[in-house]
């Protein structure tokens, strides 16, 4: 089947089988930040934004995105400048092997869009569906809190 979606701000006409997951479609389209960690909704490595909300792309049918907005990590940097959440993840040592990082960043964007001033507890709750098998959970939380503070300053 053929349908349109808005991928990282650009309208695209794409082809997918009716049973395809959004994860498989996005990876075929070149969005390799969408990681296939478990293909079963546990790990969160494939998290993307669907109409602004973070979802496991492996658990959503690709065709569900027809006519909707999908955002992946590929769309975050602007003219080579990283998004504050990406920058903070790098600067504060939140990236170990990096496999879980895109999913964590996308989940953080969903949180910060709804809650610009999250507590540490709220960040931890938001990340409940994002596994890091390097078990580096402390640094990502610190990075998201730092990025939130920076984004608030930039907004003022």
């Amino acid at each position: 089947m053929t349908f349109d979606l808005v991928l990282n701000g650009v309208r695209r006409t794409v082809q997918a089988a009716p049973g395809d997951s959004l994860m498989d479609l996005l990876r075929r389209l070149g969005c390799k930040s969408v990681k296939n960690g478990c293909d079963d909704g546990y790990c969160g490595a494939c998290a993307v934004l669907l109409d602004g909300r973070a979802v496991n792309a492996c658990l959503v049918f690709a065709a569900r995105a027809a006519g909707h907005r999908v955002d992946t990590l590929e769309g975050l940097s602007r003219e080579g400048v990283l998004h504050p959440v990406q920058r903070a993840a790098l600067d504060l040592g939140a990236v170990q092997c990096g496999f879980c990082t895109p999913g964590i960043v996308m989940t953080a964007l969903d949180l910060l869009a709804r809650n610009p001033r999250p507590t540490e507890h709220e960040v931890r709750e938001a990340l409940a569906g994002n596994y890091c098998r390097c078990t580096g959970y402390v640094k990502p939380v610190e990075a998201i809190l730092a990025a939130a503070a920076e984004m608030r300053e930039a907004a003022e």
Partner: protein
Amino acid sequence: MSLTGITAYLQPGTLEEAYGLLDDRSIAVGGGTDIIRHPHIGVTTLVDLGALPLRYLRHESGFAIGGTATLSDMLEHPGLAAHLDGVVAEMLRGVGSPLLRNAATIGGHLARGRYSDIVPLLLALDATLTLFDGTERTLSLADYYRAGLHRSRALISEIGLPPAGPDTAAAFLKFTRVAFDYALLNCAVQVRLDGRGMVEEARVAVGETPALGALVEAAAQSLEGGPLDDGRIDASAELAAAAIPAQDDQRASAEYRRALCRVGVRRALFRARGRLEGRRQ
């Protein structure tokens, strides 16, 4: 996980149209988060309900929740989050992960009818469902499962929660091995007191026995007509432990589940009583 063998993905715009598309070779899709994880023998058509105008949550005298509202829509609704001391939000925070709750729909969850913390709580809160199977009708959630309608093609268009006054309190709790897991057992209670502080109506529901949550009538009836004191709470919990259809499975033994049930129902009733007492101060 992409599904193979699917040849059509349809997005009807009305309930009538959606229901008309359901047959032996098709399956209705709410969020799709469970359907996409399992092969469906003989199914070739997915009927996506996402385009139906059912993603709403209205706070009227009680709550009217559209069938395709996501679990996150419910968790983030301020009125529902405050309902009955936040018991619905408290339960939902332990269901899946935020990523899953952002996609999973309440109608899809209820129609799936297995592995649920949501079902026992909604049973305790006396939820109703509005179904469409050619005509629209409303029935209790308890009757929906009693009649096995979750195995039918009936589509859930709305979930209703009745209003609750200051003399009503509820509580939910579950036992799990780790936080992000299905419960070994879960239970929910709702208690309404009369003007003299006696229990006018009680509802006790226990789930993951490992069967889907169900009301335990004997445990509820034993509470009615008397004070919500320690002795009557203990007696109700004992009755619940004896009455549930406990079975062994890979998660827990039947014996352990009865022990959990005794403790769980007692704690839930204590918690509900604490909430009622908190309001009088």
